[in-house]
């Protein structure tokens, strides 16, 4: 198969279609419009459904209805639209309806801006809507991964009967890279005997709901969900590492921030600094174990995010005692993507053998000791 130059958002749409998703419901918002535009053209050709809903809220509820009916269904949006979808995502998690939500996130809060940001980390990994639940969150850092992880998201959604979010950003969605349109290895999927099909042949009714009013009923349901999340944590942790074995300092970053950090990490090695990198790919479940185990030998971590410090909290919780966790963040708006050199300077300043930066140089960074 040949590689083709493909835009990130289109790779998402291709990944979904190749994974067998024939149902898309969405609402326009920048910077993810190529996803619905591509699917509005391609889905009708294969007998699928592309529906432009009246709102983000309606779109996610159509996904709920389609997912409950037993098919692979998805929606996509960007930060403000994802906020609107949280109601439906909570219902999907509560009533165990599979579905895929793609967030090509942009700068926030409020209307924010249309440039890349990682400000939706907390919303994505800590629940987002009301209640005790989790969404599986996958964070690609390339066009190839946008394709592969979107496809994989449908497998996870079906296996765990849970909504799965692909968290990209404006840079990833809008850039073009060579794409090899090859699916990840297939996974074993459970039958959807719970789905709405009409009581075929008079089988007992299937009910998909999240309302539990009898004594003890809801608590039991939540513990059942928690057991599922424990299984998710054992089975779906994904991350990438670079030169962590001998590292004195490990960079921790995901998505676009990780792409920039990869350059900075190489630059640091060229200078003779033993710097490694951990890139969480699944943000929920968070790759806690690799952070904990590396912290037995590595004492310094530098978290880099396109926000004011969100994943930072999860890194702090994951590393062992005595590890020092520093942070470099650029809460993004137009023109505020950090350059590799900027991160290299930060690496030097926390690495140890370089002089501590002055307050002025520290700029919008801050350091934290665990």
């Amino acid at each position: 198969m040949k590689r083709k130059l493909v835009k990130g958002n289109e790779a998402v749409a291709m990944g979904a279609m190749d994974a067998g998703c024939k149902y898309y419901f969405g609402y326009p918002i920048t910077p993810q419009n190529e996803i619905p535009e591509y699917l509005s053209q391609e889905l009708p050709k294969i007998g699928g459904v592309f529906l432009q809903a009246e709102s983000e809220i309606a779109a996610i509820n159509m996904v709920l209805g389609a997912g409950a009916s037993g098919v692979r269904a998805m929606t996509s949006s960007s930060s403000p639209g994802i906020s609107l979808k949280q109601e439906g995502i909570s219902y999907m998690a509560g009533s165990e309806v599979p579905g895929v939500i793609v967030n090509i996130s942009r700068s926030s809060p409020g209307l924010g801006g249309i440039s890349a940001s990682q400000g939706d980390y907390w919303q994505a990994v800590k629940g987002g809507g009301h209640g005790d639940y989790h969404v599986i969150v996958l964070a690609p850092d390339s066009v190839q991964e946008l394709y592969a992880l979107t496809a994989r998201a449908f497998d996870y959604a079906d296996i765990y009967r849970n909504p799965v979010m692909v968290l990209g950003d404006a840079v990833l969605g809008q850039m073009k890279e060579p794409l090899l349109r090859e699916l990840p290895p297939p996974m074993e999927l459970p039958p959807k005997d719970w789905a709405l099909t009409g009581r075929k042949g008079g089988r007992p009714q299937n009910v998909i709901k999240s309302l539990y009013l009898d004594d003890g009923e809801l608590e039991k349901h939540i513990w059942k969900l928690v057991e599922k999340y424990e299984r998710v944590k054992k089975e779906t942790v994904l991350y990438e590492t670079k030169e962590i074995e001998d590292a004195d300092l490990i960079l921790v970053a995901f998505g676009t921030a990780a792409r920039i950090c990869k350059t900075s990490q190489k630059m640091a090695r060229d200078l003779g600094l033993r710097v490694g990198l951990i890139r969480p790919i699944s943000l929920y479940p968070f790759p806690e174990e690799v952070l904990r185990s590396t912290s037995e030998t590595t004492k310094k971590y530098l978290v880099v995010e396109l926000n004011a410090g969100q994943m930072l909290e999860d890194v702090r919780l994951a590393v062992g005692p005595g590890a020092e966790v520093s942070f470099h963040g650029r809460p993004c708006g137009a023109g505020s993507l950090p350059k590799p050199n900027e991160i290299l300077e930060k690496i030097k300043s926390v690495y140890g053998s370089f002089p501590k930066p002055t307050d002025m140089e520290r700029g919008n960074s801050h350091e934290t000791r665990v």
Partner: protein
Amino acid sequence: MKLVFDHPKSLKDTPSHFCPGCHHGLIQRLVAEAIDHYELQDTCIGVASVGCSVFMYNYFDVDVVEAPHGRAPAVATGVKRVHPDKIVFSIQGDGDLAAIGTAEIIHTANRGENITIIFVNNTTYGMTGGQMAPTTLLGQVTTTSPYGRDFQQDGYPIRMAEMLATLEGSAYVARVAVDKPANLMKAKKSIREAFRMQKEGMGFSFVEVLSSCPTDWKMSPGDACKRVEEEMIPYFPLGVYKEREIADHL
């Protein structure tokens, strides 16, 4: 001997949670009778809305998915797009359909989504304890309009059937009542017609049913029926507002 009256097959034989004198049970029965009439029980998928209607799955012996407040038409759209050959319906109250779910119902109708919505209008939020609804009549006292609904403060009671009838996508729009036997028979006919429309792929079908809520109205069931006739029907006239004869796509 000929059996002339029986429990509808698609309705479970189970005690209901509805208050004494509430019309919801009657409306459910009419829906079940329509489902049975066309033998749709095994091809039917219900969408439970939020409010007194949420326990639909305890009563109807069909597949059911629960929707968030106001979103039943959107959820039903998702179901129907996957199963165009199935009959998809929801029973929604006035808070659900005419307030929080206004966008969903209007656009679902406007898309001509081939589903059936039964709209129970009792001029109040029944399940939450009798607050003011978008359909609450002027002067009506509720727990959140303690001085009576005032148009300067709260606007006017909204007429959904009339509004939806203006949309090209609507195939069948009617308003009925179940306050007395003559109206009940008309209601039965309308609800059956709505399901027939869907069965024949005519487009969006909608029946608004004026309903009593004796508990929240603080009335006896008899007085509540009288209120439907004397106060509700004059403001919400009964009748068929839209009836498509040939599907748009034909």
